């Protein structure tokens, strides 16, 4: 299983070699409510860690998604244009946002692993 890391802002990155797929956590999608639109980054865009990677529109409000790692966007999840509710129904799977060619894999070291993130989320309620 590929290695998945989390930020305190509830984004995740799943790393496979030198690429990483980013998305938001199940906890985050639950907080947002029904997602009705996702604005994805352009393929080829170079993002620094913490740059805005996407904007999620729920019925009620817009929320920015920041990339957990630096890299170049090499693929985006076009399916979200047809069905943005995939973010709600499968945040950790089919609701992914973009695939990045990582430029600084050492950034991953400071992110939370699955167990640490789980404890972090529990501390919020």
């Amino acid at each position, binding site marked *: 299983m590929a290695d998945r890391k989390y930020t305190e*802002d509830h984004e995740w990155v799943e790393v496979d070699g030198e690429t990483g797929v980013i998305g938001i956590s199940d906890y*985050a999608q639950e907080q947002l409510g029904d997602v*009705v639109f996702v604005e994805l980054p352009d393929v080829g865009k170079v993002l620094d860690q913490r740059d805005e990677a996407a904007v999620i529109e729920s019925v009620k409000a817009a929320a920015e998604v920041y990339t957990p790692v630096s890299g170049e966007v090499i693929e985006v999840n076009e399916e979200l244009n047809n069905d943005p509710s995939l973010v709600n129904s499968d945040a950790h799977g089919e609701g992914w946002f973009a695939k990045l060619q990582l430029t600084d894999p050492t950034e991953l070291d400071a992110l939370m692993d699955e167990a640490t993130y789980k404890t972090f989320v529990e501390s919020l309620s």
Partner: protein
Amino acid sequence: MANASPDTELLKTPLHDLHVARGARMMSFAGYALPVQYPAGIITEHKHTRNAAGLFDVSHMGQAILRGADVAASFEKLVPGDIAGLATGQMRYTLLLNETGGIRDDLMATRIEENGALALFLVVNGACRDADFAHIASSLDGEATLEILADRALLALQGPGAEDVLAELAPDCSDLVFLEGRDMEVDGVSAFVTRSGYTGEDGYEISLPAAAAAAFAEKLLAHDAVEPIGLGARDSLRLEAGLCLYGHDIDEVTTPVEAGLSWTVGKRRRETADFPGAAIILKQIAGGPSRRRVGLLPEGRAPVREGAPIQNAAGDGLGMVTSGGFAPGLERPIAMGYVAADHAEAGTSVTIELRGRSVAAEVAAMPFVKPNYKRS
């Protein structure tokens, strides 16, 4: 993705425990902790209200009874509506105005009769409640007295199934048509019931003693047709219905004419011209305002939000979006806002700024969704 937890000092409505027990996400609104949504989610709650019946806790709204020797004439000093012309049991949407014709608040007034004496039952916005009541009481000091009903809850049951559900507990509710109200027994409790709401649907608003509210709400919710609905869906429902949200679509620097609410200025009142800001408002009615509230249909899927600038093709500023979101009933974004009067005609092409780019949009007639009121 920050998530603010509700402030512990927020006021609680009589249904607070019910909301929490049903898994509502609570938010701060008008000083109260209120449900923004339940686990079903805003889209499901919205559609349920359009298809069956939704129960809303609107106990944060201000309720009061105004009494006086000539209460209608007194209240007309503050609002442009024809209050004297109301029959007993008739309800009217009207506006508290300031001296420059701006809107202090919008409210519902129902003429009631108490032991032969006429009075007005008022319901005002929660966020304006204290200011409204202070304004009414001090403006009418010596001729009318305001009793603030602090110990009453207000529930709204909205949707095509509302009448059948409520009639089981209050058979008399079927006698009311849209914008009528009166006292009636509701499940053995004395309540004030009006056929009104804020969703564009048929339905009722039920004012009852706070102590009886939770048991009554549970009884309604036990019905298959009824689900609890939060403020999120309340907002998307009223936006589809083209209804103004105070503090957003109308405020102290917006006149009724600009807001498309000239119809609230009664015919007789236009002749007597004796309401606050009358000179300014009547001049705008005669000559047209410089800007107007309009509906907006942005292209694509991305909602435009309050505060987004509206421009013409040349890039000149026309105004601003005041409410915007996703319409679950239309499965597309909708909005309302103000534009220069020469761009207010339905079908006019405009652009709306969204995150540094321009989205094409069309000025559209409101309501976006046809209302389903029971008028006769």
